[in-house]
């Protein structure tokens, strides 16, 4: 269990630069999610950390050990970093037991697996072969195998992507639980913001070869550094507003404002972030409401996602509104909208994400 510290990591394949000076820190025992779209270099980052490939530049430290940098590259077998690839990557030619004890010294292989298989709840399947296991079981065995060598850091490469939706949530919770019980520092890469926000102690958004923002899930969702991060970690309405004292005037009325950084001198033009669940359907007589028309309505059971065009909006994109599922609002309905709680504002032009 050690701190991970990455600084100035560069990696190119031919003329294609994948990582361009990436910095990242993770505390010992913490769970970090690297969130990024496909092709953003997430897997490259994990492969560099694991030592399968060497970075062009940059330093990787695990605890006090420099594993990459200062002209040296430590081979993967000496790094003590567990790696759980997509779909588990179990060795198909040996049993579950032999998979889990693969990395142990020869004399420990016979008895070494029991405690770990207990930990992942697979004790009775030790004699099975990987193809006899379900996808979720394979993932848990892969995790046990990585933990068996008592790694200082475990890397998980989109480990839940190949699972069914309903299985994914339960396997994910189990994995989180197992990692917490074994006090292992873990790094997970994913393109699923829901997964990142619900699992991790801190989420790092990987964009254009660098970490755009690294913060605890709540801070990331509430205080994204720019438009693009705001949109990437969840659905976001970004509208323009004008500061009037403590309040901001928008097409949704005058709203309580919260500055991301130090407040700018008023009056000024600001960008306003309103999350879909901050917007409520209201009765027509309430104060500060805005009238609009529903353009489309998508029903999801637990909630309904509406696209709403406000009368007061000229040329701005329709608002995304998340209403409770039991409210039936067909397309074409006229509705009134209000906003709950303060909204995040920052000066226009600042933090236009690349």
């Amino acid at each position, binding site marked *: 269990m050690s701190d991970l510290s990455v600084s100035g990591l560069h990696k190119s394949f031919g003329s294609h630069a994948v990582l361009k000076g990436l910095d990242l820190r993770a505390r010992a025992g913490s769970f970090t999610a690297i969130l990024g779209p496909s092709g953003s270099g997430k897997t490259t980052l994990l492969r560099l950390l694991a030592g399968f490939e060497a970075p062009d530049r940059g330093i990787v430290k695990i605890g006090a050990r420099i594993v990459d940098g200062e002209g040296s590259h430590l081979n993967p*077998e000496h790094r003590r970093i567990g790696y759980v690839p997509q779909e588990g990557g179990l060795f198909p030619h040996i049993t579950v037991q032999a998979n889990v004890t693969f990395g142990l010294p020869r004399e420990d292989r016979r008895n070494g697996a029991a405690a770990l298989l207990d930990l992942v709840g697979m004790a009775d399947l030790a004699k099975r072969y990987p193809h006899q296991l379900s996808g979720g079981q394979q993932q848990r065995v892969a995790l046990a195998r990585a933990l068996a060598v008592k790694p200082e850091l475990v890397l998980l490469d989109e480990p839940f992507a190949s699972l069914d939706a309903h299985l994914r949530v339960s396997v994910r919770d189990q994995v989180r639980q197992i990692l917490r019980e074994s006090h292992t520092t873990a790094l997970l890469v994913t393109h699923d913001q829901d997964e990142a926000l619900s699992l991790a102690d801190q989420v790092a958004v990987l964009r254009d070869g660098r970490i755009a923002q690294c913060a605890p899930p709540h801070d990331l969702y509430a205080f994204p550094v720019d438009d693009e991060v705001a949109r990437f970690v969840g659905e976001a309405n970004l509208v323009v507003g004008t500061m009037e004292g403590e309040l901001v005037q928008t097409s949704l009325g005058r709203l309580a404002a919260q500055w991301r950084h130090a407040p700018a001198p008023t009056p000024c033009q600001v960008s306003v972030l309103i999350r879909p669940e901050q917007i409520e359907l209201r009765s027509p007589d309430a104060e500060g409401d805005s009238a609009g028309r529903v353009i489309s309505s998508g029903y999801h059971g637990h909630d309904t996602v509406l696209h709403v065009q406000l009368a007061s909006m000229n040329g701005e994109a329709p608002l995304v509104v998340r209403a409770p599922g039991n409210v039936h609002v067909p397309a074409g309905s006229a509705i009134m909208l209000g906003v709950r709680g303060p909204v995040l504002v920052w000066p226009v032009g600042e933090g236009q994400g690349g």
Partner: protein
Amino acid sequence: MSIAQPASAIVPARRGPRPWGLLIASAAVAAVLALPLVFLLIEAGGAGASSIVHLVFRSLTVTLLWNTVSLTAVVTALCAVIGTAAAWCVERTDLPLRKVWAVLVVVPLAIPDFVISFGWASLSTWVRGFHGAVLVMTLAVYPLVYLPVAASFRNADPGQEELARSLGAGRLVTFWRITIGQARVAILGGCLLVALVMLAEYGAFEILSYQTFTTEIFTEFNISFNVAAASALSIVLVLISLAVLCGEGFARGRAQVSRAGALAQRVSTPRPLGRAKPLVLAGFTVLVALALGVPVGSAIYWMLEAGHAYLTGVSLIDAAWHTALYAAIAGVLATIMALPVALLALRHRKRAYQLLERSTYLVLAMTGLVIALALSYFSERYAGGFLYQSAPLLVLAYAIMFFPLALVGVRASVAQAPPGLEDVARSLGQRRLAVLWRVTLPLVGPGLAAAFCLVFLSVVTELTATLILIPTGVQTLATQFWSYQQNLAYGQAAPFALAIMLIAALPSYVLGRFFDRLPSRAAVAA
């Protein structure tokens, strides 16, 4: 939980850790494979450029060129038609007894071409010359087209045919554009093999009194001892082989057959043959009777004819032992040589490494006779007779000749084994050699076995290079058969022919199992 950093573990971090071990091993293999070509050029250079030019540009060369090229073209075309048609009927129609036919049509591959040739020629003097060669060689080598095409029909996505029909293509258009289109790469690959076999064949043509480059080179070298003429003709033969290789590469282009989605086997609905069924059945019966029945029947006939007069028990067992011994050692050697080359090209996807792998396919342009001549001439002339007509040189020649076959088997398995597993094993603290031993080798094991069987089978049925390089006083099944056959002692030759077929049968069976199982193994690994 602290861990000492072994000094040896730290390597310079320039552009990623280089696989030095694999690189050195592969480069050494490539160098060994290039030896015959180098020797051939030295040999030709020794004869002098002007005499080589003189030897190449004479009327005999034109005759040989015409004989070789016309026969190769006709047989290749016939094999393409027969092999593809048979594969389609077996894999895609409701032909009765499909499983039985699938085995019977492949068996001629385990019978050496010179045995099939002997089977026909010993029964009738009509089977001679061009038409005799067309008949015999087509029957002997059409399985080289059948096998890859049948595999391609098995693995191709039948959904694409349904899709084509739904897009308005009729049955014939669908058959031509989709079914044949999917098999195109396999057909071309099969034709390439057929053409290369045609260029390399000696024994069958000698029996049929048909003159090609290879028979002429053999005569010049082994009977007239005219090394300059042999090497001049060899160079022309290598150039023809290179032209065939390039032609196949050009025709294949960048075509790739892939299937979208999972490799799960969708069973295609067999096409009903309807009223054509008796006709197709008759066709298969005739094909198997001609390709399998005649040579086997002929060998048995000559053996019974001779009666007990020529019981050859001891020499038969001795020859069988040497055949199996050489074949086994050559099989192991070629497989070991193929492993680093395949691992390097597939696991470290760099252009230079892939070129290194490609370069080893140049061996295909060197027929067995040319390789044998180059090695034998060099050991005699420049190495002071070192290894001349010795078992190690013979085995080395086999390993070089059949290296491309070993590479095919090893490559198929390495490509199937997911590379991520080796990374995982290393992250679990295993060194490269341990990973090779504990993960890579078990996963590619079946492919290594297949490679071994391919080489073993080829050595057992090899005649030409063996005749040149066989150690003095030793006989293999093929050479003993050959000397009896040349003395017209058919009754004594026949048991050796049957022994070759028996020894070749087992690896053929193992190979059939391996290539049948490939797709399902892929599904498990994924």
